[in-house]
């Protein structure tokens, strides 16, 4: 008990929480945009890999860090474009197409990595984002600007969603595409736009891993973070503020298990600690599933003219 209190008072702990949460915030906001528009995007896992890779590659080849972020977003957007071609323009199963995108994006990234670096002993390193030491806010000053960007995106997306005509159309298209179509708004373009934007965020979430959290690209570095985001959005009832809360809560447990692992030592197998975040995600889903107000048109392809 005492240990937990000490943990909560520890600045370094919260620094870690926020760092772990950052890619999840990007990813969950990305999923939010897609699902609010009525589209499940299981491509997220692969898109994060691709974003991590292209962002890193850009910087490695001499681009600036921010150019790397932009390229990662662009990469995500391209895969989002492909996904929307499959599930918006063509009414393919969103589950299967998303998994296909994940496989495609992941294998393409690994392939490209190997073509570019056929024989490397250790992964090449880059100079990653520096902490914002100039910022006079305690925990935040030990984060990179990408974390700040992630935090700023939460109210921004909230504003767009609830205070602009575009956001209204987006919320409506995930509820009832006919309502949107009958007002002369193009359902397909709206959904495509949402998927592309959401996927770009997922790409940036991946890039955080290579450009801020670590300084190189290695295989399996995304390691299920994408799937976590898909779970978090249900927990967050598709709201940006709750998505932030969910990401931080998840990161809290993840950081706590790291600490407990170190301090608790051999009392319990370390795998149990590692399992904890996944188990908690499932529990959270069970708790909210019954009353979850899924966007009503989620996973339903829209075929123009059909009822």
């Amino acid at each position: 008990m005492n240990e937990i209190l000490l943990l909560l008072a520890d600045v370094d702990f919260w620094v870690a929480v926020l760092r772990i949460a950052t890619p999840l915030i990007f990813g969950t906001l990305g999923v939010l945009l897609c699902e609010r528009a009525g589209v499940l995007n299981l491509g997220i896992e692969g898109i994060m890999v691709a974003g991590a890779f292209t962002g890193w590659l850009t910087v490695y080849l001499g681009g600036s860090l921010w150019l790397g972020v932009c390229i990662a977003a662009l990469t995500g957007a391209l895969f989002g474009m492909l996904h929307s071609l499959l599930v918006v323009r063509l009414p393919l199963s969103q589950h299967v197409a998303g998994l296909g995108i994940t496989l495609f994006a992941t294998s393409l990234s690994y392939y490209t990595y190997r073509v570019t670096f056929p024989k490397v002993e250790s992964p090449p390193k880059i100079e990653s984002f520096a902490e914002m030491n100039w910022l006079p806010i305690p925990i935040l000053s030990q984060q990179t600007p990408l974390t700040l960007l992630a935090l700023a995106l939460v109210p921004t997306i909230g504003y767009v969603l609830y205070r602009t005509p575009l956001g209204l159309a987006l919320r409506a298209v995930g509820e009832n595409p006919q309502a949107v179509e009958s007002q002369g708004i193009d359902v397909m373009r709206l959904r495509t736009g949402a998927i592309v934007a959401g996927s770009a965020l997922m790409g940036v979430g991946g890039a955080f891993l290579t450009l801020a959290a670590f300084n190189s690209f290695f295989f399996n570095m995304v390691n299920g973070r994408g799937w976590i985001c898909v779970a978090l959005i249900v927990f967050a009832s598709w709201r940006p503020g709750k998505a932030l809360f969910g990401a931080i809560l998840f990161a809290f447990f993840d950081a706590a298990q790291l600490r407990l692992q170190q301090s608790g030592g051999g009392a319990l197998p370390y795998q149990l600690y590692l399992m904890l975040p996944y188990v908690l995600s499932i529990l959270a889903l069970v708790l909210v599933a019954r009353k979850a107000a899924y966007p009503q048109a989620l996973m339903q392809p829209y075929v123009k003219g059909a009822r």
Partner: protein
Amino acid sequence: MVSSLVIDNVTKQFGGLIANNNISLTLARGEVLALLGENGAGKSTLMNILFGHYVADSGSISVFGESLTPGKPQEALARGVGMVHQHFTLADNLSVLDNVMLGAEKLARIASGRAAARERLATLSSQFGLTISPDALIRSLSVGEKQRVEILKALYRGARILILDEPTSVLTPQEASALFATLKRLVTDGLSIIFISHKLDEVLAISDRVAVLRQGKLVFEGATREATKASLANAMVGREVTRIQRDGGSSEKELRTELLQLNNVSADCPDSRMPLDQISLLVRAGEIVAIAGVSGNGQSLLADVLFGIVKPSAGTVGAASPRSTSSTKKQSVARIPEDRQHTGSVGDLTVWENAILPRVSDSRFSKWGWLKRTNARAHATALVKRFDVRLSSIEQPIRRLSGGNMQKLILGRELSEQPEVIVAAQPTWGLDVGAVAFVHQQLLDARARGAAVLMISEDLDEVFALADRIAVMSKGRLSDAVSSAHWTRESIGLAMAGEALAA
């Protein structure tokens, strides 16, 4: 005076089918034009062309003197044409204000003008007597209120021409009169209205002029006061309409056998349908009992309970016949669902698989868990022949069948078992006249044979044409079933609105 809307020689062909054949129509300012026609007569195609969803093969449409560019959905809306669809196009989890504002502002705007929008909505509401709370969520509204939102939506976007597609199909007679009053106000204000319907009484009551479509052609156009119910019906159907003849009631002796009983059945549903509140009903051999009511008052849940899809939370459903026992799923009960595509059939399965699906455990069609495919196919072939189902092969997925043929197959599947009890929910929903007559005849034949028929219907004409006794459903409760002779349209309307039950 410039006409509000001119439809000039519009033709549209789908494959071999001419959906609109050289149709010309005009709509004057301050006029209600009724557009009459059966399903498939070409009404919705014409409206889809007007709204740019389809592009006409030839012909043009102009609004207030300016012609519309084909294939631009925005344009009709922008020029002041609004449409209230039969199936509402509202987003359930958004507020009234959200729904009204949807699409009314340029998407690129950086901020919604919500305060101004709220004010404008309030003004419109009071101007036309369409009161509604702007912050209410759509899913909390009644059907009539939702329709009001649809009309407000159109007015908010500056509609001067309002098109209403089957607007009364979901309303009580009283709600319908309120709607008519609203429409009169709109017309006085200078709006023009196209009123799409197939209910002749309404058309005669509300419209100034009538246009009738049949098989894609405009077959009649003229002032309403020069038309009669019979002349319109003939124009619509293209032949003399023969009413189905119902012989007198069955003998008292037959009627004594009670075949279907519902005792204080209550049920809740996880989705937001109206729950059932203590429903009791008896249906006896040789009679048709109809459950009338406005859509959304619990009929669909009641049907699900009768069909065995939903378990009642209290009370019992019993088919109390010598041959069957507790459940309505037993063989001697025929079940005809409202929704043939999503309930009555499994679209991706073949016709023959669907023909046996509810009785697959029957020894005719399976043994030790193995399907008797030869028997099943033979059974399906026989059904297809006997009930005149038009198809190319029984190996087709059933979803490729037309609605009427699908319904014939389902009817055949259920009625060929010589059922003692028949439960039919909206059995003629969306069928053309020929198919409706066929279904009605089958139900009457079953009654003559001594079957107990329970029919749930929202179509009062159908209810009065077939039923021996009628019960009315309102807000999840069911009135007593009373001989149809005791009901008038007036009294049934009050009961549908829940008045009679409260008293």
